[in-house]
């Protein structure tokens, strides 16, 4: 089947083979290639972070018996957290899928600042190298949250991890900056804001958070480095400083960060569900605005991580109240996604299966968030395994499911190949089932009082810990199998048509894989992104309907 698209591309020429050789990749300015490089690097760190997760759960199999000592365990949960948060979950969707898709979905040839884009990738790599270097030295055992004064006093190589996160933060800032200007200045003719796909709205809201929040992380980490090196005393009670101030600084970034993690995933779900329901997304405007609602509220709830820290009762009151409100836009999205399916025509391909998984897992994650937002309830549950379960449900059950949905949805587009559907059903079932087996027991452990970051625990918690560990093996198997069948598809998958899912958005109106310039002719947009009529979807760049032109 010829590599022929609506815009008449030369047979066989695409971004993958446009220029050959590894040097052309390492010096590329093509957003698609940069996205691919990010994807493989991020997935590599996901594997590393995942190995630490498996080791942690192994160590927790028995109460009283451990194959690693306490200091090693403490380092492992620090590495797992820091790697997953800073090197995987925050960059994954924006830097990998976002870089690949944003220009194409708005009808542009590239992002606003291609050289800055490549530079961002290398900044990410530099940050990753610093952080990883710590693993080969004395390591770090502070937890990914680096609370003072322990993080000032510990003799582990904390500064390397702090520096790594500091540097990687600039990658996040510049990526966000690039996307904002791209959406402002490079939309194709006719691509008004109300015709933008919801993935773009999501990335745009995420980019705003990245630009505004990450600099505060930069200054926080810098101050902590100075604490360790120079002893400036701002966070050290022994020198007159305030350890709770560190928590405020840290969470001022790190709470918005979790919305950097989830908003893009929600954007992907908003793309997948209409396509596989053959029906427009329900409540487009509300979903678009809800992304901004979430981004705004994200900045004023950080204190809900600190209800028992010693901050004032007034702060607790305010943060609890405002946190409740983040459930509203989140609910808007969730109800709209489910209602989109009603009276649709549902197809059970892998992207849709992951969307189902997302809705189940994220609903649990979100509802348990309400428990934690409730002041009295949080007093008992904070710092226990209930919190660990909550954030894994939203970060893995949310962001990672979204990433997997996106990887499968756009797989044919990015690689020009199709993957094995049957394998994807098995793997997704393993992952979603395994995830519930791993983390649902942790809610119960938390309710029973088992604290987090515990190398050892009381015997009465053993059974549920063992169930959880078995679940982690299921997840691991599911991911390994996914890597296997996707890898096989990359090598020898069936050739993909330009629009296998009959989707309406612009990336599907060019060849699979796309040509170097994305489109041979600039697309002219006349339709919104979800014109799924009963007789078929109308591409965004189809000629204008005379009645609505």
């Amino acid at each position, binding site marked *: 089947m010829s590599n022929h698209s609506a815009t008449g591309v030369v047979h066989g020429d695409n971004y993958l083979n446009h220029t050959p050789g590894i040097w052309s990749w390492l010096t590329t300015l093509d957003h698609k290639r940069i996205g691919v490089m990010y994807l493989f690097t991020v997935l590599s760190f996901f594997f590393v972070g995942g190995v630490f997760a498996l080791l942690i759960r192994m160590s927790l199999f028995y109460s009283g018996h451990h194959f690693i000592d306490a200091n090693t365990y403490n380092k492992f949960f620090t590495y797992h957290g820091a790697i997953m948060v800073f090197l995987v979950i925050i960059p994954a969707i924006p830097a990998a899928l976002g870089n690949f898709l944003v*220009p194409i979905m708005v009808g542009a040839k590239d992002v606003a600042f291609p050289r800055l884009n490549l530079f961002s990738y290398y900044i990410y790599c530099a940050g990753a190298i610093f952080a990883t270097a710590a693993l080969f030295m004395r390591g770090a055992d502070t937890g990914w949250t680096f609370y003072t004064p322990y993080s000032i006093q510990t003799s582990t190589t904390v500064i390397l991890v702090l520096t790594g996160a500091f540097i990687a933060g600039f990658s996040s*800032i510049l990526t966000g900056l690039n996307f904002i200007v791209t959406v402002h200045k490079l939309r194709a003719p006719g691509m008004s804001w109300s015709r933008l796909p919801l993935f773009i709205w999501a990335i745009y809201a995420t980019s705003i958070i990245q630009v505004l929040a990450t*600099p505060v992380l930069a200054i*926080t980490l810098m101050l902590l480095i100075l604490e360790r090196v120079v002893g400036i*005393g*701002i966070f050290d009670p022994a020198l007159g*400083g305030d350890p709770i101030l560190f928590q405020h600084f840290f969470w*001022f970034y790190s709470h918005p960060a979790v919305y950097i993690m989830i908003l893009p995933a929600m954007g992907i779900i908003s793309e997948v569900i209409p396509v596989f329901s053959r029906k427009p997304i329900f409540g487009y405007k509300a979903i678009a605005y809800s992304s901004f609602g979430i981004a705004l509220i994200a900045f004023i709830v950080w204190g809900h991580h600190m209800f028992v820290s010693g901050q004032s009762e007034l702060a607790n009151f305010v943060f609890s109240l405002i946190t409740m409100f983040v459930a509203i836009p989140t609910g808007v999205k969730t109800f709209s996604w489910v209602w989109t399916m009603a009276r649709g025509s549902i197809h059970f391909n892998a992207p849709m299966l992951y969307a189902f998984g997302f809705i189940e897992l994220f609903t649990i994650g979100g509802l348990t968030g309400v428990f934690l937002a409730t002041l009295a309830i949080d007093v008992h549950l904070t710092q226990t395994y209930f919190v660990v379960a909550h954030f894994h449900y939203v970060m893995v059950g949310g962001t990672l499911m979204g990433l997997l949905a996106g990887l499968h949805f756009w797989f044919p587009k990015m690689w020009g190949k199709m993957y094995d559907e049957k394998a994807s059903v098995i793997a997704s079932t393993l992952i979603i089932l395994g995830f519930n087996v791993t983390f649902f027991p942790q809610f119960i452990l938390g309710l029973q009082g088992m604290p987090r970051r515990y190398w050892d625990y009381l015997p009465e918690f053993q059974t549920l810990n063992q169930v959880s560990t078995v679940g982690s093996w299921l997840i691991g198997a599911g991911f390994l199998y996914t890597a296997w069948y996707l890898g096989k598809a990359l090598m020898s998958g069936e050739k993909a048509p330009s629009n296998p899912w009959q989707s309406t958005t612009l990336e599907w109106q060019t060849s699979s894989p796309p040509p170097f310039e994305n489109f041979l002719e600039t697309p002219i947009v006349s339709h919104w992104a979800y014109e799924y009529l009963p007789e078929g979807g109308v591409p965004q760049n189809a000629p204008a309907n005379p009645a609505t032109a």
Partner: protein
Amino acid sequence: MSDSHGTHAMTSDDGGVVHHFAHHFATADDEFEAAKQGMWLFLVTEVLMFGGLFVAYGIFHGLYPAMFKECHEFLNVKLGATNTVVLITSSLTMALAVSATQRGKRQRAILLLTSTFMLACCFLVIKYFEWSHKFHEGLLPGKHFTNTEIHAKKADLFFSLYFVMTGLHGFHVIVGMCLIAWLIKRTVKKELGPQYYTPTELVGFYWHFVDLVWIYLFPLLYLVN
């Protein structure tokens, strides 16, 4: 200078400056507008970053007002005020340099950029004298604080904030100087002029921001009342 996207070339009427703008933009004007937006967004991130330090300052000032009052008397207001004048003047020369570049007055632009650079140097030299005086007096951050004249407790906190805030600002001045030197080189080589002055304009924004940060720092640190 080209990138693998290919570029559009634009020669100027005076046969001087040639600019290629990137292919993914429809017009050179779009590229210029995009570049300005990018720089504004970057400066917003800088505001947030310095903002964190200002918040820390505000909190400790609120907790220990008497200590802050006592400590600030050990700062040299004359030198600080001089530096303020120096930086404001450099902002003026920078703005004039941008204007000169836009109007094709190359020699003038080079002179003004050089003046900005020299004024920045002057700022750093004065800073050097201030800092070395503090080292001498034991007015050092955190656990290195050894001064015995100050009575207030936790005075080390004030000087921690002083050194971190002026240090980070000074770092930004040094980066600005490198950028201005780069502009001088490119203006000399006729790469910047009426047809293309984006880098000059953007560095101008950056420099005004650096000046603005100092305008907030100076009263907070030196004029505590």
